[in-house]
């Protein structure tokens, strides 16, 4: 393993964040373009000297169809120190009951605000999203620390009750007895086989909601079965 080609944590983070600022771009695609721009190893100094023109034309104009404003904002991220985690907190938007008809509320076990990477019993927080066919809204982030002075008999019940208002829970691992406690509260746990970004997972769910949701999900969305049949008939007719 040559240390020449490894990225510092800081740079890896910058590249990841910059890729998110570009449409249809993952870190790998951006990395390929940057390698073409400045060569390996990619260093902070080299990125500081990178200009828009080089960035846009690199790798046979990989990014040439993107507008300058988008590219500039990506360059800005690449060239500047990532701010402390506190300020990276995503923006929470208020949600009032009835705002999004035909939506489901989901909880995501996450330790970094970006990925579904939490274990139910140990994740630092649950991110709460309201998801409908045409909107995804982050409505809350709930820390899992037990408040000082509060006696908790069962940590897993405490955690499940934190997200009692949600219909679906995404996580990467959960024990059997804990899963049973989650299900008992009417929350449907979904365990992912590997870590995936929240955006991707929620996007997939949105696709299902917009299409033909399975009956249990339709029920969670508050669609009565009579309506479901009506929809099916409309779809056929």
């Amino acid at each position, binding site marked *: 393993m040559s240390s020449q080609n490894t990225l510092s944590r800081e740079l890896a983070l910058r590249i990841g964040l910059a890729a998110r600022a570009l449409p249809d771009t993952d870190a790998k695609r951006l990395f390929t373009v940057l390698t073409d721009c400045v060569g390996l190893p990619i260093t902070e100094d080299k990125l500081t000297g990178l200009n828009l023109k080089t960035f846009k034309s690199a790798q046979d104009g990989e990014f040439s169809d993107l507008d300058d404003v988008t590219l500039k904002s990506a360059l800005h991220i690449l060239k500047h120190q990532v701010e402390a985690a506190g300020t990276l907190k995503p923006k929470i938007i208020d949600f009032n009951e009835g705002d999004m008809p035909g939506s489901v509320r989901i909880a995501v076990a996450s330790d970094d605000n970006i990925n579904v990477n939490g274990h139910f019993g140990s994740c630092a927080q649950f991110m709460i999203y309201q998801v409908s066919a045409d909107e995804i809204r982050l409505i809350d982030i709930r820390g899992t620390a037990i408040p000082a002075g509060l006696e908790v008999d069962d940590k897993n019940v405490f955690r499940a009750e934190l997200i009692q208002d949600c219909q679906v829970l995404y996580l990467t691992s959960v024990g059997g007895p804990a899963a049973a406690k989650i*299900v*008992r509260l009417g929350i*449907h746990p979904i365990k992912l086989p590997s870590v995936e970004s929240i955006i991707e997972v929620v996007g997939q769910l949105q696709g299902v909601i917009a299409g033909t949701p*399975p*009956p*249990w999900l*339709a*029920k969670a969305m508050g669609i009565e*079965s009579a309506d479901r049949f009506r929809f099916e008939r409309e779809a056929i007719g």
Partner: protein
Amino acid sequence: MALYIVEADCISCGDCEPVCPTNSITEGSIVFKIDKKTCTECEGDFDVPQCVKVCPIDNCILPLEA
């Protein structure tokens, strides 16, 4: 006598299919379903219906009335 699967609750996990001693459970177009002609509620094979035992959802598999 037979059991049926409540369509609105079944999550299509498929856990019930292999445990049925009479092979009465199959995946339908929407969710799993039980063939009421062959379902015995496991009488003669087990003390309790095996599909109910393994189903992760409460009250998802119920006896057919009459």
